[in-house]
């Protein structure tokens, strides 16, 4: 099933060019002609909108992406993960794949990534706290992993679990929220070609504060859905628990799709501040599904997104 999306790997070729083109000053200098020619080269492949988006995105610096994080296992402050996550023990690492799959098992990292082609994806990342970044992830589609696991027909959801290492995690010792951190996706969301498991950023192995050694990335949902440091992936029939939804169901729904029209009960989601713009950075409008509306809106056809927030 995953092979159906292999076409998307064409982004592999595109990304260097896109990363090159996304330097706005270069675009400006080269003028419209060169820009159009560059896009033309990738225009023949689908889905074009995603490519165009990717080309327009300018990634945050490695420093931005690794110095400003939410990872409550290592503290509630934005700089706590960068300060404390070095204590996370990532070797050895094993991932359990179980539940409604034909090939359950416990895999070492090497076994887990074996045979999967790592590609780069430049995605917007929108935090529920109304800030955002652009991150160049390295990883593979979750669909590839699920295809290998052999999803049984009864499975409707995928649940994920983060490692708990109390001796290494000050946030776990203090019990700031319930641990282990858990998250979940509906199966069609999990199978969507945009959904990936990332093992790195900027071509580097995943930094610990970003969820080493492997994390989920679901770019059209608020950042907390993109669970870090995964140790378990379980296919289920029932909607799985999700940590923030357990803590405060009125504020954090199971879906948690980025939606500028549905505000968080305590703050607006209509705008966001892009990290890295300095003290006078202007806010920008938040996009429906974080700019991935064309790709994912059909997943929610007929659903009231105010009710299923």
């Amino acid at each position, binding site marked *: 099933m995953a092979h159906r999306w292999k076409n998307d790997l064409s982004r592999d070729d595109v990304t260097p060019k896109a990363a090159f083109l996304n330097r706005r000053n270069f675009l400006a200098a080269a003028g419209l002609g060169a820009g159009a020619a560059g896009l033309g080269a990738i225009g023949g492949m689908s889905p074009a909108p995603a490519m165009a988006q990717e080309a327009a995105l300018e990634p945050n610096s490695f420093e931005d992406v690794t*110095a*400003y994080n939410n990872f409550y296992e290592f503290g509630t402050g934005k700089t706590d993960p960068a300060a404390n996550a070095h204590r996370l023990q990532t070797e050895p690492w094993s991932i359990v794949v179980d539940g409604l799959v034909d090939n359950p098992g416990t895999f070492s990292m090497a076994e887990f990534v074996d045979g999967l082609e790592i590609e780069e994806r430049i995605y917007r990342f929108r935090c529920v706290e109304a*800030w955002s970044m652009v991150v160049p992830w390295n990883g593979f589609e979750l669909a590839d992993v699920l295809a290998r696991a052999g999803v049984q027909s009864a499975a409707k959801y995928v649940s994920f679990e983060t490692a708990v290492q109390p001796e290494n995690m000050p946030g776990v010792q*203090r019990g700031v929220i319930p641990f282990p951190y858990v998250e979940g996706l509906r199966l069609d969301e999990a199978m969507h070609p945009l959904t990936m498991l990332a093992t790195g950023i900027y071509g580097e192995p995943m930094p610990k504060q970003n969820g080493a050694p492997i994390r989920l990335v679901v770019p059209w949902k608020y950042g907390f859905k993109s669970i870090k440091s995964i140790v378990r992936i379980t296919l289920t029939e029932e909607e799985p628990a999700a940590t923030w939804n357990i803590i405060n169901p009125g504020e954090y729904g199971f879906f948690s799709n980025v939606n500028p029209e549905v505000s968080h009960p305590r703050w607006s989601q209509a705008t966001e501040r892009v990290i890295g713009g*300095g*003290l006078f950075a202007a806010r920008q409008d938040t996009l429906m599904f974080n700019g991935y509306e064309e790709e994912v809106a059909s997943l929610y056809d007929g659903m009231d997104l105010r009710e299923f927030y």
Partner: protein
Amino acid sequence: MTNTINSALRRVPAWTIYLAGFGWAAWLFWQALNGLGAYAVEPINVLERAYGEIALILLVAGLAVTPVRQHLGVNLIKFRRAIGLTAFFYVIAHFLVFAVLDVQSLGRVWEEVVKRPYVTVGMLSLVLLIPLAVTSNNLSIRKMGAASWRKLHKLTYPAALLGALHYLWLTRGFPTEPLFYFVVITALLLLRAKFKKRNQVTA
């Protein structure tokens, strides 16, 4: 011991509080402007939090002056006005960072104040502090009379409590710092109520 401390304190002029307060605020702003240290990645929120938290610390410090004298014998009373006014300065600085650098439009400021309870509460705290800042001078004490002036300045308590609530309400999860302020302010309030009661009984 307390005598030594008190006589040492007598030699420190009150204006040092203003100097330290404004100086520190300027230093934080400079760091934010240049993206230094904690301000490297997201200076706006960090500066907003820093000013807000210092405002809360100074409000607590102002409230602690009387209990510290009553229970520890250390007299900081001559610094209290400077502490209070510096706290107000930080509240205003916090609000300006929120309004100008963070939400960036008057319409959105109003929307936040009306729609977000934690902003409403913070704004209410700021408003309560305005008459206190305006009357923090000898002329006002003379004009109002000491008794009614003191009564008015009891507003510091609800203002500080609302400030702590504002902080507690805006966070996700259960971080310890906001809870800490809430507990300390409540403790100071209880301490004062108890002391007053005891004095009334013995009087």
